[in-house]
């Protein structure tokens, strides 16, 4: 019997101005990162409501990563500072409930850091693959 290899489903929220352009640059430079990463473009990392992350987990994502501009470089001046506070409290709460802390991550990736984008994604996918399927936060009622 052949055992199916585990392929994680990763949702990446990328800010339009930095990280999405960073992903673009990674592509232009022919850098490899796994196709398991599904990028969702958002106008700013602070557009990411913590509920989006929970919703992604609820519907079967195995890991969620949020990428935004470096602090101080936000296109809207201060959006990523709010993101930082929100995610710090949310990640801490998920950890408090016993959810594996490696499943969530916040990274600052600028438009010039194509290499960092690819490296981050490779690292994150590897980490989540090692953890295996997301069992603790899934909701079978919502899975497709």
């Amino acid at each position, binding site marked *: 019997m052949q055992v199916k290899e585990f392929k994680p489903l990763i949702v990446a929220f990328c800010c339009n101005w930095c990280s999405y352009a960073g992903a673009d640059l990674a592509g232009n430079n022919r850098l490899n990162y796994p196709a398991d990463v599904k990028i969702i473009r958002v106008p700013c990392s602070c557009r990411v409501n*913590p*509920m989006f992350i*929970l919703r992604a*987990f*609820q*519907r079967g994502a195995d890991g969620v990563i949020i990428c935004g501009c470096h*602090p*101080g470089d936000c296109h809207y001046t*201060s959006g990523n*500072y*709010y993101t*930082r*506070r*929100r*995610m*710090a*409290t*949310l*990640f*801490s*709460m*998920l*950890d*408090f*409930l*016993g*959810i*594996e*802390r490696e499943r*969530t*991550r*916040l990274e600052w990736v600028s438009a010039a850091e194509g290499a960092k984008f690819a490296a981050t994604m490779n690292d994150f996918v590897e980490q989540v693959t090692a953890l295996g399927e997301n069992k*603790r*936060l899934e*909701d*079978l*009622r*919502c899975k497709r």
Partner: protein
Amino acid sequence: MQTITRQTLLDKAVSLLNSGAVTCVLGWKKGEFDYDITPAIFRSAEDLEANFVWNDFCGANFSKYLVAKTDRLDGKMLVFLKPCDTYSFNQLLTEHRFDREKVYAVGIPCEGMADIAKIKAITGDGISSIACDEKISVTTLYADAPVVIDSKDVLLERCENCKSKKHVAYDELLCEEGETIDSNRFDEVARLEAMTPDERFAFWQNELSRCIRCNACRDACPACTCEKCVFDNPKSGVENKAPANSFEEKLFHIIRAYHVAGRCTDCGECSRVCPQNIPLHLLNRKFIKDINEFYGEYQAGEEVGSRAPLVNYTQDDIEPGDVFNRGGDNNA
């Protein structure tokens, strides 16, 4: 036992009502049983005489009721506020949820409210009547003599760890000005934080799997005052579907706690009203503890107009990746 008597409150309410200073009174009346005292609006002195109740079961936080009940009100509403209610009162004022001019707030002292779950643990089920005097005497269907319990032994969790006896908002105070208290309210959170992730997961699985999604925690919470709630979304994909492994309401609880993060005054209504006795306040306290540790001490509702920590920032806040590696080694 409460230090202020029903008669004192009644006299105050009747005199204000008769003088025309207020048009109605937000108070407590008996519910179906002696222990489920419910909030009620009184419009006449006769109604007050007959139905007004004040005893060890008047736990309800009135602040939230002001939002809906003063909206179309002519004149003023008299509301009795215990110290913990005044924090919610200020928080709602900060959020412009009701008109301060329409409320006459009377601060009353509180010696802590009784927890019916703890009483039932002592007396068993079948409580037919409860009399609150110096002590609480409970008559059950199955015992011959009433069981007498000291209310200090059966306090609600939130009252055992009372954070403040100080009224932060009032028009008139019926007692001495109190003080804030250095309570041990974060001890239980710290105990959980010291566990391994698997232990924590098992703990919450055990607690939250009891949830029946009655939404009482949301409905009672004075910070949850949205007119339209995300949890009433018929397209959520979970409506009318039974949970497959009985632990799927965890997301509801994370979101509920997150929605009030930074605004929660830690009044403990969520845990008080929970019919399944889930310690929901622990989730809120985790957020409060985190906010205190990451961004400096903050007590929601302490002053009107203060800026909540989650709608604020500094340039050198803690990075989300670093929140796990503070102090103690609890990594599995």
